[in-house]
């Protein structure tokens, strides 16, 4: 019987955009157990709720993540609006939906590039990030920010998208979709991608469900949970089916993200066709008094913003539960029994956002 050794992986590693540490217990080249450790970039953002008034805290919520910042802001606002019984104008809800889907496109393309880089496919990395520039340009044009959009507020949104701009955005999606189709074909059919990902990092459906996997990590194992189905923002008025794969391996998780690119494009088209004219915000009156667990579908899975107010301008508590935090236990399951050389690809397959997870 071979001797067990413990190999540290991270917090600094070429495949990790952010720091996470894993103690890998190895028998020869096989991982027997993986023990994760985070906490290198805990910022204590949740405590700032005591220092910032509830409308100002949107800026803090948005800065939880530099990739899906819009959805953080929206989910926080949604929670406060539910506590205050605010009726957000429908146009604002559609605008939130459109920006959320552009954020998802941006996040998935960023991840696809990183994933291509992790498996050593540099051209595909560059093609994915080139396509992502189109999305960032749209976000910059419509919100003023490429990374932090700052366009959500309690009661609605800060900016409108003019009808002619919206029409042009939809027209531009045709060429963008063709470009994505080329990239998708490589991710789904190229032998070098399949060889590095199929049958690697297996996660069964039951483990995915009961260990707390969310987003593409869960949907890659056949768990069809997608919080957009609850109908928040304008999703209740749009038609879509969550992308689900049943393989439970890195390939399936990659395939879910690839398919979701096209779902997002379709949702933007639907939202642009149905968006009504009208106001984009209502003014909140008073202070929040009550609590709500606001949930939304981030690119990485279910996001929960818990807000609790006591009738003052400062909330008692804001708690942000991000999908990366809940995808860590499933990652431990995936790593047990894998080859050491597959660890970087498996870790990346949950799309870890540690800044989000630690807040």
């Amino acid at each position: 019987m071979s001797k067990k050794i413990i190999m540290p992986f991270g917090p600094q590693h070429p495949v990790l955009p952010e720091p996470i540490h894993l103690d890998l217990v190895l028998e020869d080249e096989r991982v027997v157990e993986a023990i994760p450790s985070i906490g290198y970039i805990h910022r204590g953002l949740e405590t700032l709720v005591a220092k910032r008034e509830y409308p100002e805290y949107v800026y803090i919520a948005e800065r939880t993540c530099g990739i899906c910042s819009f959805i953080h802001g929206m989910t926080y606002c949604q929670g406060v609006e539910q506590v205050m019984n605010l009726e957000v104008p429908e146009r604002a809800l559609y605008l939130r939906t459109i920006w959320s889907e552009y954020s998802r496109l941006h996040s998935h393309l960023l991840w696809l590039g990183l994933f291509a880089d992790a498996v050593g496919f540099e051209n595909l990395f560059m093609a994915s990030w080139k396509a992502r520039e189109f999305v960032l340009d749209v976000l910059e044009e419509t919100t003023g920010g490429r990374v932090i959009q700052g366009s959500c507020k309690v009661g609605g949104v800060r900016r409108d998208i003019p009808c002619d701009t919206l029409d042009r955005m939809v027209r531009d999606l045709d060429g963008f979709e063709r470009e994505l189709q080329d990239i998708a074909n490589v991710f789904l059919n190229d032998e070098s991608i399949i060889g590095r990902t199929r049958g690697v990092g297996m996660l069964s459906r039951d483990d995915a469900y009961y260990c707390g996997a969310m987003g593409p990590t869960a949907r890659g194992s056949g768990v069809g949970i997608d919080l957009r189905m609850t109908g928040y923002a304008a999703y209740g008025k749009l038609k879509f089916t969550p992308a689900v794969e049943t393989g439970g391996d890195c390939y399936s998780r990659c395939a879910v993200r690839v398919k979701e690119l096209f779902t997002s494009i379709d949702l933007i088209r639907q939202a642009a066709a149905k968006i009504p004219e009208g106001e984009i915000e209502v003014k909140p009156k008073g202070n929040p008094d009550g609590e709500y667990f606001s949930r939304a579908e981030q690119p990485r899975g279910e996001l929960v913003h818990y807000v609790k107010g006591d009738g003052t301008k400062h909330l008692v508590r804001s708690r942000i539960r991000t999908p990366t935090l809940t995808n860590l236990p499933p990652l431990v399951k995936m790593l047990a029994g894998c080859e050491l050389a597959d660890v970087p690809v498996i870790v990346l397959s949950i799309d870890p956002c540690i800044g989000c997870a630690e807040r």
Partner: protein
Amino acid sequence: MTIEAQETTVVEQDHLIGLVEGYKKQGYRLVQINCTKVGDLYEINYSFDLRYQFKNLRIVVDGKREIPSISGIYWGAFVYENEMHDLFGIRVVGMNVDFGGHLIRTAKKNPFANPTFRGEDACPKK
């Protein structure tokens, strides 16, 4: 417009494990565990979901008594329980993976247990 109905049930700490086991048997998934300091007490919420039906169990504890881990029922609960220990100082017994207070590295021990600046003005300009 209410997005989703959310049900919160306050329960005794001694009944927690039995109720959580009941949720698991019904097929609920664990959404999250969170802790809120209210006065001198701590509200701990255990949230579950089944087909987008959101339910919440709440225990209220004083922070001195240990609470049982549910990681024997929901394996992934250890991340929330370790976090709750590190940030609030809540002692959770029976965790399947215990980081011994080192999951979240903080400059101060249990920083969320004693928030000191609630309601203060924004940071002074330099």
